[in-house]
């Protein structure tokens, strides 16, 4: 047993092991401390040396009994810090009047023995409490379910405190909201990516008497962001904060291990998918029966009509980790696609039983485009869509088209980096013709009035013409209001003195735009 240092009674009252304890009279001041626990069998019992200690009466007294008053007087006279009696029914009027008069906090608990032993452990047997908590946390964490959430739930049920995974900077990624707005700056200052590298537990004193205990979760890959496993304690009760620190380091390790295991399984699946797709794409004329069987097992339908989608993204994106988001975005739009990680992005396709009609194709392309916009919030992408092709070989064919379209789309900010191969033929032909030395000076002079004007008029005009003169589509791509688009178009009309309703003038302008306008992202 270690030497006891007094702890605040309010901290004991806030501890999970003291949930059953309630204040019956004279609520404790924050400065009131408990240095030890004395126990007597019943209300008539007397204990020596009460000073600074919590006097506990194990046998619940009848509330009308005047002996309670005598005990309150004795406890107050011997400077006990508080009195704990059995059962939590309220004190009688005379007893509570006396407790208020002598200033002795009276507590009630349905199981006073358990409460007294818990108090003794929290005050005087800190190491015992820490080791017991760590054992229980270890056992609960290792036996918990597979997910990170399961581990956090199991650990939280032992600690009886809110747990959360918090990113460097204070954003809660998973679990309870433990970082209040006013504490955010303090937390962000301590839980930095740099601090996480030392792999030591951090304490953050919060406003009020609360305390945050945080331990970094070991990263699975070098690309992983810093994550802290955090718990919030209402008071700095030394036994509890020590136990929480030790418990969190154990739990953080288990969470790291679970994350690695999950990552491993995901990687294995991704590899299997990629190799299967590779076999499909590289198959000669006919797909081998073993490949067909593996595709069947993976839930891929090789018969029917396939529409290929290629989603390209930057090297900073982890396609394995982000795959669920891509599937989610497509599903939100009603597209049930097979998605395979491939290179810096994903190859995906949707399959339908019958040969699709023209309207269906347009509808699908629209849905894919919406899905791309959903993804744009977190991941910038360039998307290419192929044409419908039938049968096992059709997958390779449509994905091939989609891949080329995506490469072209990457350079076309005006169309929101989206390209459907059905539209590709004409566009490519025209572009090839306009990129000649004779046409370029003419185009430049045609559009010269727009240069230097506020409002990015050239970009607006290009987008507007690319989008079949649709004001709303232009607004969506540029991320501005449609009224702004309309107002810019009016200015363009007056600056250029052209009629955009005239087919030949429109065609000339469109060609000029295509020739000289260089998308901002392609500069340099």
């Amino acid at each position, binding site marked *: 047993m270690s030497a006891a240092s007094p702890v605040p009674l309010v901290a004991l009252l806030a501890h999970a092991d003291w949930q059953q304890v309630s204040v019956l009279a004279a609520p404790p001041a924050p400065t009131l401390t408990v240095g030890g626990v004395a126990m007597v069998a019943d209300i008539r019992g007397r204990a020596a040396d009460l000073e600074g200690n919590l006097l506990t009466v194990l046998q619940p007294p009848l509330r009308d009994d005047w002996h309670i008053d005598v005990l309150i007087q004795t406890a107050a006279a011997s400077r006990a810090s508080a009195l704990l009696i059995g059962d939590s029914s309220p004190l009688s009027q005379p007893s509570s009047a*006396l407790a208020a008069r002598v200033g002795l906090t009276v507590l009630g608990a349905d199981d006073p023995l358990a409460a007294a032993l818990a108090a003794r452990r929290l005050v005087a047997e800190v190491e015992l409490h820490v080791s017991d908590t760590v054992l229980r946390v270890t056992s609960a964490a290792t036996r918990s379910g597979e997910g990170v959430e399961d581990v956090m739930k199991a650990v939280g049920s032992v600690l009886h405190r809110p747990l959360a995974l918090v990113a460097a900077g204070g954003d809660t990624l998973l679990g309870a909201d433990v970082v209040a707005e006013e504490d955010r700056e303090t937390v962000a200052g301590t839980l930095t990516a740099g601090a996480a590298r030392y792999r030591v537990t951090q304490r953050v004193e919060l406003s009020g008497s609360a305390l945050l205990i945080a331990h970094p979760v070991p990263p699975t890959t070098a690309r992983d962001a810093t994550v802290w496993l955090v718990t919030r304690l209402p008071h700095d009760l030394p036994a509890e904060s020590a136990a929480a620190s030790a418990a969190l380091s154990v739990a953080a390790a288990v969470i790291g291990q679970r994350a690695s295991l999950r990552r491993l399984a995901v990687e294995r699946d991704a590899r299997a998918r990629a190799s299967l797709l590779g076999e499909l794409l590289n198959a000669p004329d006919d797909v081998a029966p073993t490949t067909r069987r593996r595709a069947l097992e993976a839930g891929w339908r090789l018969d029917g009509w396939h529409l290929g989608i290629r989603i390209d993204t930057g090297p900073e994106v982890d396609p394995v980790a982000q795959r669920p988001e891509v599937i989610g975005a497509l599903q939100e739009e009603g597209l049930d696609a097979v998605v395979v990680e491939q290179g810096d992005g994903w190859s995906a396709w949707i399959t339908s039983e019958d040969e699709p009609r023209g309207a269906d194709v347009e509808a699908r392309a629209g849905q894919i485009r919406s899905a791309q916009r959903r993804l744009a919030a977190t991941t910038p992408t360039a998307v290419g869509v192929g044409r419908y092709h039938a049968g096992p070989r059709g997958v390779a064919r449509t994905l091939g088209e989609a891949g080329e379209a995506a490469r072209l789309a990457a350079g076309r900010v005006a169309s929101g980096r989206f390209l459907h191969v059905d539209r590709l033929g004409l566009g490519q032909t025209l572009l090839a013709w306009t990129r000649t030395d004779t046409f370029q000076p003419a185009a430049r002079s045609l559009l010269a009035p727009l240069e230097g004007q506020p409002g990015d008029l050239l970009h607006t005009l290009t987008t507007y013409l690319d989008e079949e003169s649709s004001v709303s589509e232009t607004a969506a791509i540029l991320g501005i209001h449609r009224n702004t688009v309309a107002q810019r178009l009016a200015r363009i009309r007056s600056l250029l003195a052209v009629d955009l309703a005239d087919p030949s003038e429109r065609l000339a302008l469109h060609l000029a735009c295509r020739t000289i306008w260089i998308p901002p992202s392609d500069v340099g």
Partner: protein
Amino acid sequence: MSPPASRTLRAADLEALAVGLCLLGSGGAGDPQPFASVLRSQLGSGELVLHAPGGLGGASVVPVGMVGATSVFTEKLPHGGEFGAAVAATGRWTGAAPDAVMGIETAGLNGVTALVAALRLELPYVDADLAGRGLPRLDQLTWVTAQLPLTPCALAFPGGHTLLVDSASATEVERTIRAALAGTGGWAALALPPSPAALLDETACVGTLGRALELGRAHGSLRVLADAAEVAEVLGGEVLGEGRVHDVLRHSAGGGLQPESSVTVLDRNGPVLRIETENEFLMVLVDGEPRATVPDLICLLDRRTNRPLAVDALRRGDEVFVVVLPAPAWWLAPGRLDRVSPAAFAIDSPPLLLGGRP
């Protein structure tokens, strides 16, 4: 020890007597006022001699009193013949008519009943009784401590029937009479076996009615709005506190027959007083520390009028003095305290008496 001189009682003394009897009742023993009116009309302009037992030689003295619920008494009025019937029954059983009358318990209501009985039976009244203060049970009487039998005794009910109990222990007498009262409802007149007057100096509290008169007269001399020191000095006791009744907690924790309650008085100077009661006030705790117990007389007085307050009349908000007066002297002689000590009321505290006695 010389016998106290005989005194007399006149109608003019009755007001002081009633107050004194209330003080001796220690919050219980019933209100003497209704019977005091009966006594006033019986006395008229005459006077009643309060004989000292020593002056009556070998006369046999019968203790009489009322048992049962004092509160029912004012609803179920006596027809006047009850005491005669009870005394006559013991006379028939023992074969000798008594020569004088004394009280069973000279406190509260019963302090007056014996006087009424003496006038009605036209027998001399002896100023002696078997309690000296308000006591709730028959097995607490001085005769029980002195190991004298309480039988044969007779109960006469207002309905006219009579019950005689013989050859029973004090506990059996108490139990039988409580059962009979529960069966008939209300109250009855009780006569105990007559005793030779010469024995009473040793076996009874002598001069209790005289003490009641003195207390009543002293009380009458108190000024309105007297302070605590004056109250203590005039009544010859101690004031443990003065303040407002904060709460009256009625409970029956012990499962006993008596209604129990705890009265909280917040002293105007800070301390919290707790008064444990049954029929009477039994114990006073000041700030959780027991300070006074039975058999001393614990009385609560209205702080403005000084009027003694009964246990069942106390209400939240009453302004009171908490006063302790000395116990009847008879109980304080060695070996006599057991039946009136706190333990006799299921309170596990030693007796705490004025001046540190005994």
